[in-house]
């Protein structure tokens, strides 16, 4: 149970970074931290008591495996996180070239 609370705490740390920081790169890092916390939570959901890693080898016919489905999900979600981060960073670099600064208060021009 404490592990789930710690995951949620990590999510809140990331959220704090996204909301309060002014530098674009710190906002991107906040989103990355939130994604890590989600991946961790997904893997922890699949834990079976006294389970081993779900790989079929020679001597593993009678062992209890942990749930392999969340692990397959996490592989996909990590790739999605990579694509999201690459997209954010590309936009951040272009913004820097146009405005000359990473500060979002100067970039925030669209209003109304």
């Amino acid at each position: 149970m404490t592990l789930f609370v710690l995951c949620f705490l990590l999510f809140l740390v990331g959220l704090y970074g996204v909301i309060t920081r002014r530098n674009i790169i710190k906002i991107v890092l906040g989103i990355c931290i939130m994604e890590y916390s989600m991946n961790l939570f997904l893997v922890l959901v699949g834990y079976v008591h006294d389970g081993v890693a779900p790989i079929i080898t020679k001597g593993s016919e009678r062992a209890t495996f942990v749930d392999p489905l969340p692990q397959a999900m996490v592989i996909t979600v990590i790739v999605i996180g990579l694509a999201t981060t690459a997209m954010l960073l590309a936009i951040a670099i272009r913004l820097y070239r146009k405005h000359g600064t990473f500060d979002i208060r100067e970039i925030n021009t669209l209003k109304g």
Partner: protein
Amino acid sequence: MQSDKGMTIIVKKMTQVLVGIIVLFGVYIITYGHLTPGGGFAGGTIIAGAFILLVLAYGDDIMHLRVTKEGSSKLENLAIFMFLLFAIPGLFMIPSVFFRNYLPLGTVGELLSAGVIPLFNIFIGIEVAAALFTIFLAFVILKEEDK
């Protein structure tokens, strides 16, 4: 032999030694992907790491980088298209389902088994390596253009 591009000579010599080993390790992770943890994505990332190490250690001028980026972008699209092409023949067989495993399944635990999955692993590995290399080159080109 001290050229002013890239890093110092120690880094260049170590890169020469290590790049082959890194690529070999990546290929091992990809091909044994149906038996041990890893598979296409993890192995592809390792191979991309080897290429990125080469560009970082030796440096390059922007024209050559642009040509390389075009090439790796086309390779990435071609690899994923081949992946789709290998998944489609299931539609034309009986019973017709998409993504059907139509090559012979061997025994569990052998290298040549599990039908069409090792092929998929190889194409995904090529695709991920090319994609990550393209992203890296795009960032480096954006930085070099700025100067």
